[in-house]
């Protein structure tokens, strides 16, 4: 199905926001001003955006430690996120969560997560709630090729099938869990979708560096899961991460030229630009204008993050029940 001009521009813009957000963080983190562990999503933008462009605020997603892309794609405020990562008091989570714990429940974003494999069971609960509510809403969990080996993920898949939860397991296979290759750690010869299939789910596969592949695959997946009574489904996207596991990772596990090759061949933004301009759907100038606008938006978010109020000692004691 052909996407409208507006939809194409929007999808490109969303991917570009994630890209520039992460590229900027990669630079700013070197200065030492940003604290904590940061895992960048660059390279995987087509997955987050190709999934979330189908969703509204009543559809839920549950994210991972590599969550910035999912958050942005689901509509979390760019400035609020940048401030959070900089640890500001008016960040999206008041500087209490940081990069690994960004959440905006009103937007249907139930949290990035520092615990690998913690998200899938949460998405089962949200998927059961969606089923009970009967409005055709869904809950989506993003899991990596590492997280798919966690017992919690297995339990969640079985329980989603048994409960007919409106849950979608989106597996982002970026070939590495930290420093370990998926061919070693995923015992089914690296094939994640076949596992989900063995749990009794309908499964799909797609190219996670190609927005159109993700978007069209997700349309089918969602058409299926939104039908009351159908229960869960799973989809595996093959994708790439352009940076290290976390910032500071020397990446010696990569092959020679691997990073250049994936940046050249498997860049979802380059591929998007090529296919829409080749097909005459958009002009380079349209996309160039968006590029400039996005760069400015990211610049502004950094300005705001640097200028924002810092949290104080009293803030430690709020937002929690303290009996002591």
């Amino acid at each position, binding site marked *: 199905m052909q996407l409208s001009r507006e939809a194409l521009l929007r999808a490109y813009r969303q991917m570009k926001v994630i890209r520039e957000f992460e590229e900027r963080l990669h630079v700013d983190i070197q200065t030492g001003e940003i*604290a*904590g*562990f940061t895992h960048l999503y660059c390279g995987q933008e087509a997955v987050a955006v190709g999934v979330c462009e189908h969703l509204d605020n009543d559809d839920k997603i549950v994210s991972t430690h590599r969550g910035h892309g999912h958050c942005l794609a689901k509509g979390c405020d760019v400035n609020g996120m940048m401030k959070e990562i900089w*640890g*500001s*008091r008016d960040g999206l*989570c008041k*500087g*209490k*969560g*940081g990069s*690994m*714990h960004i959440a905006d429940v009103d937007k249907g974003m139930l949290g990035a*997560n*520092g*615990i*690998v*494999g913690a998200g899938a069971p949460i998405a089962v609960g949200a998927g059961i709630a969606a089923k009970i509510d009967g409005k055709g809403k869904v809950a989506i969990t993003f899991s990596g090729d*590492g*997280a798919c*080996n*966690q*017992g*919690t993920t297995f339990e969640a898949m079985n329980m989603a099938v048994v409960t007919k939860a409106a849950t979608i397991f989106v597996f982002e296979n970026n070939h*590495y*869990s*930290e*420093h*370990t*290759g*998926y*061919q*070693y*750690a*995923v*015992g089914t010869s690296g094939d994640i979708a076949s596992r989900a299939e063995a749990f009794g789910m309908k499964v799909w596969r797609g190219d996670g560096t190609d927005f159109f592949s993700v978007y069209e695959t997700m349309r089918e997946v969602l058409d299926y899961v939104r039908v009351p009574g159908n229960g869960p489904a799973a989809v595996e996207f093959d994708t790439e991460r352009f940076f290290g596991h976390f910032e500071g990772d*020397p*990446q*010696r*596990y*990569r*092959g*020679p030229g*691997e990073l250049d090759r994936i940046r050249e061949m498997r860049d979802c933004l380059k591929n998007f630009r090529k296919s829409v301009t080749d097909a005459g759907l958009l002009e380079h100038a349209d996309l160039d204008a968006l590029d400039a606008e996005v760069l400015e938006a990211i610049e502004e978010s950094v300005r705001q993050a640097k200028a924002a109020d*810092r*949290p*104080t*000692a009293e*803030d*430690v*004691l709020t937002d*929690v029940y*303290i*009996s*002591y």
Partner: protein
Amino acid sequence: MAKMMYRDAVVSTIAEEMERDENVVCLGEDIVGGMGTPGGPEAIGGIWSTSTGLFGKFGADRVIDTPISESAIMGAAAGLALSGKRPIAELMFADFIGVSLDQIWNQIAKFRYMFGGKTKCPAVIRMAYGAGYNAAAQHSQAVHQILTGMPGLKVVMPTTPADVKGLLRTAIRDDDPVIFLEHKALYGVSGEVPDDPDYMIPFGHARLSRAGQDVTIVSTGLLLGFCEAVADKLAAEGIGCDVIDLRTTSPLDEETILDSVEVTGRLIVVDEAPPRCSLGADICALVAEKAFASLKAPPLSVNPPHTPIPFARELESAYLPSVDKIEAAVRKVLGYR
């Protein structure tokens, strides 16, 4: 004596014990690092560099790089231990005990007792704990109070490289399960370490790191250094502090604590874990019970507040006990009445 970092004391002790006893095996996530990648095994190693070189020396049967499956890692350690091996299982972050707790708590800790003493369970479970990296609520916790409360487990918290060496060796040779807690912020700290290949520190023997007559300060891990700084500062004012490094929280060296409080009459426990049902509560109760007559002031515990660990720099430093907070506590007990 050789000078080495805390993290190198971990690796070298494991290597020496693996050399000495072929039943010792290691398992954990990324402990080889690079498995199944173009760079190949040991391309990079684990994130704490606490297993560097082990795979090359001892091979894939004894240095087992696991998928992200903490429950199965701990369960495998349990099964290995019941099958004549001496596993050393690594949890990359102590916070991940959440995923694997059943195997630690209901299995490993209980086998020897539940089975009527018919088995031993010589598993060592190593984990990196502690705050100071702005790693937020799920990657910064000190979990010793949870594990110390579990019958069947021994819990070790080394502060210096020498203690890593002596305590880890004892842990590996111990026939009971041992939790070995390594503070992330101490991995890069250097110190003199005895060369003796049988250097061992028995569990339940605290270390007196500063001696004084006026106040007893009990701590361990990263915060011990803060306590020493306070003791050194107050020494210049003529106030003497006994600073006791617990080394193990289970067994607890009651004698050293009580002997000290009998002299000083004042106790402060400085702990990185939250205050409820804590080391501080435990040791203050011990002293109230067994050294009541010696006390000149109520025992005091310095902990973070009863909240999850926040992310931002300002928040994390407000959360953690600091040199200033410890000093204020010392002055408070000194000024009592």
